[in-house]
């Protein structure tokens, strides 16, 4: 495994109910950079992302995180790997029985931090980073979609992971909130040198945050390159995706 890459995926395959979702995905994610994984809805992007944190066990293939093969690890063996990775779920997945403060403090409490003053300080810092200061005592049900995502992002970053996985971070958000999220992703990458993997089909978001771009098509990586290579490509599949053309007859 190259030191340059934090994550290396080789020949990853997955099948659900007889349908092949991933048909041998090969992808390297360089340390400290942001990789955007593009693809159509239902194309297996989120499934791929979930493999990287061990939420789904691969049918076959290899996933190496920081040099460690994780595809054969059980739930308890995966825990140290998961502590290195933060994940932002599509709908936030905040714990709805807890306040925003309790949600964001959760990873720290799980790490053994018990001092209320330390928790308050760190939660306030994380919430400030996502522009949610003063919302500590609200319940997730009382937050808007964008606020829920930002609170979930604060929860994902509070324990300072080496890598953050974003599952459709801007889906369902208005352009202003989407821009806020994009800026946050960029800021985390430039300030904290976090390796990020962003699963999306939003080209505006891609243009904003990507260092590298990969396109997942029919269960395989169809394209893997830099943002400028993506835009200069003449590949009709890529052009259709970039320009948002469907070829379906009205």
């Amino acid at each position, binding site marked *: 495994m190259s030191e340059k890459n934090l994550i290396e995926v080789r020949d990853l395959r997955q099948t659900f109910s007889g349908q092949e979702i991933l048909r041998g995905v090969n992808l390297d994610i360089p340390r400290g950079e942001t990789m955007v994984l593009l693809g159509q809805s239902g194309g297996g992007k989120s499934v791929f992302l979930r493999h990287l*944190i061990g939420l789904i066990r691969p049918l076959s293939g290899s996933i190496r995180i920081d040099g460690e093969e994780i595809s054969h690890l059980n739930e308890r063996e995966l*825990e140290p790997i998961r502590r290195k990775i933060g994940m932002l779920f599509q709908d936030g*997945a905040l*714990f*709805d029985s807890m306040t925003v403060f309790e949600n964001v403090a959760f990873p720290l409490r*799980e790490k053994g931090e018990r001092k209320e003053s330390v928790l308050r300080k760190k939660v306030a810092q994380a919430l400030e980073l996502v522009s949610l200061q003063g919302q500590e005592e609200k319940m997730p049900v009382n937050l808007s979609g964008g606020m829920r995502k930002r609170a979930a992002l604060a929860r994902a970053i509070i324990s300072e992971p080496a890598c953050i996985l974003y599952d459709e971070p801007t889906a369902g958000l208005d352009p202003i909130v989407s821009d806020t999220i994009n800026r946050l992703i960029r800021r985390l990458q430039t300030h904290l040198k976090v390796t990020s993997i962003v699963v999306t089909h939003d080209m505006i978001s891609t243009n904003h945050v990507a260092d590298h771009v990969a396109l997942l098509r029919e269960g395989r990586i169809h394209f893997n390159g830099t943002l400028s290579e993506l835009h200069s490509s003449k590949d009709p599949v890529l052009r259709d995706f970039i320009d948002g053309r469907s070829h379906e007859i009205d």
Partner: protein
Amino acid sequence: MKFPYSFPVTRAFCTYLGQTALLAGETFNSIFAGRIRFKLVLRQIVEIGFGSQAVVIITGGFTGAVFTAQTFFQFNALNMSSAVGPVVSVALCRELGPVLTALMVAGRVGAAMSAEIGTMKVTEQIDALRALAVNPVDYLVVPRAVAMMISMPLLVGECLFFGILASYFVAIRLLNVGSVYFLHNMWTYTHGKDIVMAMTKGYVFALLIVFVACNQGLSTTNGAVGVGRSTTDAVVISSLCILIGNFFLTMALNIVFPAGVH
């Protein structure tokens, strides 16, 4: 050998049993490894134990009262009204107390457990727990299992107490059974082993409810419809398990604690 594996229902049943047994195994493994979150256990004891007080008291009290009345109506015709006390107390201890308490708890607590965990499952909160390196069994199932194991025997005891208390008032105040005969016969024919049997049943039923309900919750799919289905199934399956398990428990426990033998 194709039979019985060729039948989808048999296969589904075996899969379900296997899943529940694995969950139980994993839970006990965590408990014996000391992965118990005491704060969550206390919260669950409040939810299960204190929250079920009213329903258990009313169930125990009115079951004791109506059973006393029916027993009296039959026994009085045979001039045996003084036997009402022991019949009611032994029946409450050995069968009615633990079974009815378990059925009420299955309806109240089992449904809530399944719905809560099921909702967490379909809204990715359980995946979020896993992504945060927290084992869902340790976080969700172990506290509920420990709380149920502590709460259920106490709830059964409470049901017995209020059942016998109600029986006493109905027999003495309403039906004019002699107080001395009632109490003397009840003390003579109700033994410690009857109470131990009640507690043992309560403990076993607690495990049945918690593992059925948590397994239903953890295997929930298909959004809100799935949560509704899981909740209903949790109550139905745990109630059936209690009623069927009660027969086998009675037969087994009667060997250890034989009825009517000093």
